[in-house]
C-alpha cells in the first residue's frame, strides 16, 4: 500500500536475502502461542515485550498466483483498495487513524498470500483490531475510488519494473521459468491486464477470499495469548465464516529444455548473468531437499566467503559480485538462483564459463563437511538476530502458516538445519541444479547505445 506494498518474491535477490534471513529466524525463538476461533480464524501471539508496542498483522491465504485468467494484478489491486473505506471509516481514513494514534501501517502482496499490518503502541491495539476486523467484511468500493488507484498501480509498475532494466529481465525470466504455473506472471500484473481490472473484479475477489476462515491473525510484541484471545473473539470472532473455494492452480510439467533470455536495454551499463532453477519448496516437489538447499545457498553463494564470490570475484577478475539465493516458503515450486555481475573489461563468455565450472565442480565433487559446518553456524545466528526486532517473528510465523508449513516447521528449524549433512547438500545440488530445469538471463546493453 505504501512504498513496499509489493512483495516481489523470487525476483529481487536483495529481498530474498532479507526474507531468507527472516525465514531463517525460526528456532524456538519466538515461542508463539496459537488458537483457532470458532469461525475458523487462526490467532497467533508472539510475546516480545522489549517495548510497549505491538505489530498487528492479518494474513489472507490468497495471492497473485490464485488470479483467474485475464485478471493478473487483481490480488495486489485489492490490497491497495482495502484502504478505500467502509461504512464507518471513510476512504483514505484508515491510515490516518492509525497515524493519528502514533502507529504505522502498510500491506503487502505475494504469490501465495496478502497481508496487512499496523505497528502501534500496546494500548492502541484494540483500535487497530477493530478497524482491521471492520474491513475484513465491510469494504465499500466505488469507481470514484477505484479508477485513480488503477493509475497509481500503473505508476507503481513503471517505477518498479519499467524504469529498471534488471526488473524487466527478472520479469521475463520468471515468465520463462514457469511453463504452466501462475508464478510466471508478475505479482503486480501485466500492464495491459491491469488496465482492464474493474471495481466489480476487485469486489468479486474480496467477496470470494476475504473471510475469517481464510485468514490468520498474528500479533507480536508486548502481548500474550491470554490478553489477545478475548480481543480477537470480540472483534474478529463475530465475523461469520463463509465458504471459500479451494485454490486450484495449474501445475508445472517436468521441464525438458534449458531456456535463455537476453534483455537488451539502452540503460544497461553493467552486463549481468543470472540463472534460476526450478526447485522444491517446503511443501512442493522434492521437499526432502528444502533444508539442504538453504545450506547449499549459503555455501555456494552466501556473502563474500561463498564459493561463487571466491571463484568469480576474488580468484579471477571476472565479476564485481556473485551470489546465490533460495527461499523455501512457497506453496508451489520455487527457484534456486545464482547470479554474477561482469567486472570491467572481463568477457561475458569467460564469466559464464567460470560459473559453469563452479556448478560442475559442485555437482561432481559435492561439498565438504567443513563448508556445511560453517554455513550452519551462520544460519543459526540469523535466528538469534531475527528476535532483535518487533516484526521479525510475526513475519516468519505468518509466512510459514500461509505457505503451508506452520508454526511447528518454524520451531524445529534450528534442529533440522543442524542435522543437514554434506551428503544431503550434495544430493540436493545434484537433484536441483540440472540444466533442463533452468532459465539463464543475460542483461545486455542495446547495441549502439
Amino acid at each position, binding site marked *: 500500500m505504501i512504498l513496499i506494498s509489493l512483495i516481489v518474491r523470487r525476483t529481487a535477490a536483495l529481498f530474498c536475502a532479507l526474507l531468507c534471513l527472516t525465514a531463517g529466524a525460526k528456532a524456538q525463538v519466538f515461542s508463539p502461542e496459537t488458537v483457532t476461533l470458532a469461525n475458523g480464524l487462526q490467532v497467533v501471539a508472539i510475546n516480545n515485550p522489549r517495548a510497549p508496542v505491538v505489530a498487528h498483522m492479518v494474513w489472507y491465504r490468497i495471492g497473485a498466483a490464485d488470479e483467474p485468467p485475464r485478471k493478473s494484478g487483481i490480488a495486489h489491486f485489492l490490497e491497495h483498495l482495502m484502504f478505500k473505506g467502509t461504512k464507518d471509516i471513510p476512504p483514505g481514513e484508515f491510515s490516518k487513524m492509525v497515524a493519528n494514534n502514533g502507529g*504505522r501501517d502498510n500491506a503487502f502482496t505475494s504469490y501465495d498470500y496478502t497481508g496487512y499490518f499496523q505497528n502501534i503502541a500496546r494500548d492502541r491495539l484494540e483500535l487497530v483490531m477493530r478497524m482491521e476486523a471492520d474491513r475484513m467484511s465491510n469494504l465499500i468500493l466505488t469507481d470514484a475510488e477505484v479508477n485513480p488507484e488503477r493509475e497509481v498501480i500503473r505508476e507503481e509498475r513503471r517505477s518498479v519494473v519499467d524504469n529498471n532494466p534488471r526488473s524487466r529481465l527478472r520479469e521475463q525470466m520468471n515468465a520463462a521459468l514457469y511453463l504452466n504455473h501462475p508464478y510466471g506472471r508478475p505479482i503486480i500484473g501485466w500492464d495491459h491486464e491491469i488496465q482492464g481490472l474493474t471495481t466489480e473484479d476487485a469486489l468479486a475477489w474480496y467477496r470470494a477470499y476475504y473471510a475469517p476462515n481464510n485468514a490468520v491473525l498474528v500479533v507480536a510484541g508486548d502481548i500474550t495469548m491470554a490478553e489477545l484471545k478475548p480481543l480477537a473473539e470480540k472483534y474478529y470472532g463475530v465475523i461469520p465464516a463463509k465458504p471459500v473455494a479451494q485454490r486450484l492452480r495449474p501445475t508445472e510439467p517436468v521441464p525438458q529444455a534449458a531456456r535463455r533470455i537476453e534483455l537488451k536495454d539502452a540503460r544497461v551499463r553493467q552486463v549481468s548473468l543470472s540463472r534460476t532453477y526450478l526447485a522444491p519448496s517446503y511443501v512442493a516437489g522434492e521437499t526432502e531437499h528444502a533444508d539442504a538447499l538453504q545450506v547449499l545457498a549459503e555455501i555456494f553463494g552466501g556473502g563474500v566467503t561463498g564459493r561463487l564470490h571466491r571463484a568469480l570475484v576474488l580468484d579471477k577478475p571476472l565479476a564485481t559480485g556473485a551470489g546465490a539465493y533460495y527461499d523455501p516458503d512457497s506453496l508451489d515450486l520455487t527457484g534456486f538462483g545464482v547470479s554474477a555481475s561482469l*567486472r570491467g573489461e572481463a568477457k561475458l563468455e569467460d564469466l559464464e564459463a567460470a560459473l559453469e565450472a563452479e556448478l560442475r565442480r559442485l555437482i561432481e565433487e559435492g561439498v565438504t563437511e567443513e563448508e556445511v559446518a560453517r554455513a550452519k*553456524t551462520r544460519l543459526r545466528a540469523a535466528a538469534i538476530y531475527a528476535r532483535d526486532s518487533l516484526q521479525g517473528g510475526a513475519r516468519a510465523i505468518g509466512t510459514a502458516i500461509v505457505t503451508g508449513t506452520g508454526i511447528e516447521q518454524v520451531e524445529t528449524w534450528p534442529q533440522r538445519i543442524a542435522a543437514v549433512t554434506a551428503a544431503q547438500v550434495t544430493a540436493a545440488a545434484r537433484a536441483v541444479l540440472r540444466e533442463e530445469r533452468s532459465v539463464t538471463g543475460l542483461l545486455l546493453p542495446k547495441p549502439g547505445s
Partner: protein
Amino acid sequence: MTFIVRLLLVLLALAPLPAASMTIDRVTSPGGIEAWLVRDNKIPVVALEFTFRGGAASEPGGQEGLASLLASMLIEGAGDLDSRSFQSALEDRVISLGFEAGLDTFGGSLKTLTENLDIAADLLRLSLTAPRFEAADLARVKDRVIIGLRRSAEEPNTIAGRTWMETGFPGHPYGRPTRGTPDSVANLTAEPLRGFLRQTLTRDNLIIGAAGDITPEGLGRLLDHVFGGLPARGEREAVPEIKPHNLGRTLIVRKAVPQSVMTFGHAGVKRDDPDFYTATILNYILGGGGFNSRLTTEVREKRGLAYSVYSYLGSYDYVGLMMGGTATENARVAQSLEVIRREWQRFGDEGPTSDELANAKTYLTGSFPLRLDASNRIARLLVSIQYDNLGIDYIDRRSALIEGVTMADARRVARRLFKADDLLTVVVGQPAGLEGTEVPASAPTGSGSPPPARAPSSSGGG
C-alpha cells in the same frame, strides 16, 4: 456503530501515549572515551554504532569518492589478516561490520552475538587502526565502485538527485559527487585513503552509541581497546556554510524512460534551528507523513498521478533544505508538478489546520517508541542525539518539544519554509509540455536523490 467508533477514536486521541522508557548510561572508559549505552540482556546481541564528524564534503578537491572508497576498503583486510581471512573471520561468526560515508560524517556499525564480542572488537580495532589497502583489493573494489557509478548514472533517481545538488551548490563540496566519478575514483590510491583515515577518524571527532547485552564496565574496556589507538585529533578541510543556488529554475534531463522522476527543493532548516520541531511537524503534514500527507492525498489518492510523492527536511551541517520528489508517466508530468507547486504554496500561505497540527503531534510523539525495537536502531539514536547535542535527557523532553509547537509557530514557519516560486526542480525523463531548461546528464556518480547528510549511524534523531 459509526458513533461508537468515532467516540472511541476521540477518546484514544486524547489519552496520552505511553512514553518511551529507556535508561541511558553515560559510559566513560578508563582511557577517557565516552559512549552512551542502553542495556538489554534479553537477547544475546550487542550493537555498536559510531560516527566521526567529517565525511565526503571534507574530501580534498579532485579526490571525490575518497570517503566512500575508504568505507569499502576498511573491511578488506587489516593487521595480519588479508581480505579473505578478515571477511571469513566476520562471516564465520556472523559479525556484521560496515562503514559508510555521508556528506558530513563517516559512520561505522558493528553487530555481534555476545559470545563473539571479543573477536568482533578485535576486528573492528584492526579495521580502524591497521587496514592493509592491498593493491589487488583496491583495484577490485575500485572496479566495483566505478561500474556501480556508471550503472547508477543511468538511473533516473540518481540523475535527478545528482543534478539537483550540482545545480544547487555549484563550487561547494555539497555540489560534488559524494561517491566520486569514474575518473576521480580511478585515480585514488592508498595514500589519500591513509590521509583521510588519519585526519578524520580521530578521537576528537568520535561519537559512540551502544545497545544490547553488555555491561558499562565491559563497554568501557571495549572502548579503550577499539578506539584507544586512534589519533587524538586531526585536521580536515573546512566546509563553508552555503545557501542553495539557482532557486526557481526547472531543469530537464532527457532520458528515454516511460516515467519521469522529479526532485525539487529549496532552503529549509538545519537541525540546530529553533524552528526545527515546527518544521518537522509541517513537513509531516505536507509530504512526510506517507498516506496522511497533503501531497499524497492530492497527487496520488485523488488523481492517481504517482505511486509515491513525498517531502523531507534535508538537514545538513552547513545547509538546511526542504526537499521533495515524485515520479509520474511522461504525459502527466506537468500536471503532477502543477498540483505539487499549488499545494506547496497554499501550505506556505495558510499553514496547517488545527486538526492537522494535532494529528501530526500525536503521530510524531506516539510513533517514537516504534523506532526503538532493535539494538542497532537504539544505538544509532544514541549517536544521533549526541551528534546534535540534544542532551542525555532528550528522549524524555522530545514529546514536550513537539507538543509545544503552537498554531502561531506553525503559520509563521510555514510562511518561512514553503515557497513554490523558489523550488529548484529537476525532471529526468521525457516530460511532455513542461517548460524548463534542458541540461545534459552530469558525470556518472553514485549518490541517489540528494545524499544523506550523515552516514546511517547518525541519522534519525529528529
